[in-house]
């Protein structure tokens, strides 16, 4: 199986990674190689096998509904590339 660059471009677009033609070609080659290796999994019979998302045998514990954090806008914004009036400032969002 060989991935064409359109498929790679779609993944790059979904992942918000800018890629020029050269990079798309490069990653098409890399992904083809890796996915070819991964396709060895198709040899495994997994009929009637349940997917395993997490090995943990514990049950999800829940938190009490109390307010424990907040009033720290300065800390939240301290690393922001751009901020104003306690807002994060980002390039204009198009609806």
């Amino acid at each position, binding site marked *: 199986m060989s991935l064409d660059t359109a498929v790679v471009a*779609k993944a790059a*677009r*979904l992942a*918000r990674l800018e890629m020029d033609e050269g990079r798309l070609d490069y990653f098409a080659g890399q992904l083809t190689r890796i996915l070819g290796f991964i396709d060895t999994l198709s040899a495994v019979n997994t009929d009637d096998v349940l997917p395993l*998302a*997490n090995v*943990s045998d*514990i*049950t*999800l*514990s*829940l*938190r*009490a*509904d*109390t*307010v*424990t*954090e*907040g*009033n*720290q*806008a300065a*800390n*939240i*914004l301290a690393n922001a590339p*751009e901020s*104003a*009036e*306690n*807002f*994060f*400032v*980002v*390039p*204009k*969002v*198009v*609806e």
Partner: protein
Amino acid sequence: MAELIEGRTGTWEIVIGMEVHAQITANSKLFSGASASFGGAPNNNVSFIDAGFPGMLPTLNAYCVEQAVRTGLGLKAQINQTSVFERKNYFYPDLPTGYQISQFQHPIVGTGIIEIDLPNGVTKSIGVTRLHLEQDAGKSIHDMHPTKSYVDLNRAGCALMEIVSEPDIRGADEACAYLSKLRMILRYLGTCDGNMEEGSMRADVNLSLRRLGAKEYGTRCEIKNVNSIKAVQQAIAYEAQRQLEILEDGGTINQETRLWDPNKMETRSMRSKEDAHDYRYFPCPDLLPLILDMTEVERIKATLPELPDDKKHRFMGDYGLSNYDAGVLIAERVRADYYEDVAKGRDAKLAANWVINELLGGLNKADLELDASPITAAQLGGLIDLIANNTISGKIAKDVFAEMFATRQDAAKIVEDKGLKQVTDTGAIEALVVAVLAENPNEVAEYRGGRDKLFGFFVGQVMKKSAGKANPTLINDLLKKHLGDIG
């Protein structure tokens, strides 16, 4: 009928499914300990978890889970013992982690039912497909800078219930009735305050048209930002017309997400959703499956309040109220409770009249909510007691009510202070009757000549002479006696 729309080539049916996002009433957010309260200075109710900082992990709020279960039970829905949080992946500046933690394949609540009440008195069942828990996004503000958006994450991470209906809704009236009923149920349950202005309840409308009688659904559009009952009405009217024109011209509907613009009164295609989205849902590896303790579910069920439909039927059955009156009284849980306090041990229909006509009318005029009412249920009951035991007439009672509304005083005190006590002394009333008849000889003659209608005139005159305080039954009896005597 509003569920149909007429075109040049025929009649079309407006088919609607609704997705309602209801913010859960809770102190803290779904996955963090930041406050879930509305408003506040920008980015003040934000934890590092909500802001998607490196290494931060979600922990699930137990009360939000309980609220979702409570809502599911209120919708008579299937409660799923195991549900799974998944990540819905997309980039947006008000979505700090780059994914929304939601439930996809395994929601906490499955199918349920909402009975809606239509204006013609008919009720209709709308299927609920599912209810799932998810986190809210922050807010992007676009009008503070020409080329920048400002992002406030206070709302990011607040708990939402997304309640999805089947495409069982037809037309705008049903859609409004559905939204109103859902809002009422959530408010009864105390799981969402239903405040659409503050965004704690937001509706997406999925709308398609099909020719009347057709079995297949047409292609639908999802309309977002429909955030008031009025907007539901307007957006559906606009969108149905838009689709109608395309279809009647032989065109096809593009399945897309559209935005309702309440200023321009139109829906328009959302450019940000133009890419066919591929959300890449997968189980959130930071959270294990949520497994409910079913004895806890039973406990919640046992403490569920009486819900609007049950209450309405009980009011009609136990109190003999009309469908309309019962509907008005159960619209809000506090209103129904108020009514029942008034009606307890009293004439239930009389109580309903006083609550609906005088109290709710008065509050409405004064622009007050019931919880700010100047007259308590006990006080209104006291007033009705005075009518029932003939202390005052219904007419005087209205004056007393106005005085109570203005001064917050008890009815008995007002009656006492103003000397409004009804006159039940037969001798005193008889004297007034005799006097009235004597003063109006012509009318007496006409009455005797067959003008029965004049009886009311005599009643009014006697009442007037008594300054409204004479007992009307006694006036009636004595007038009949004297008019008959003479005759």
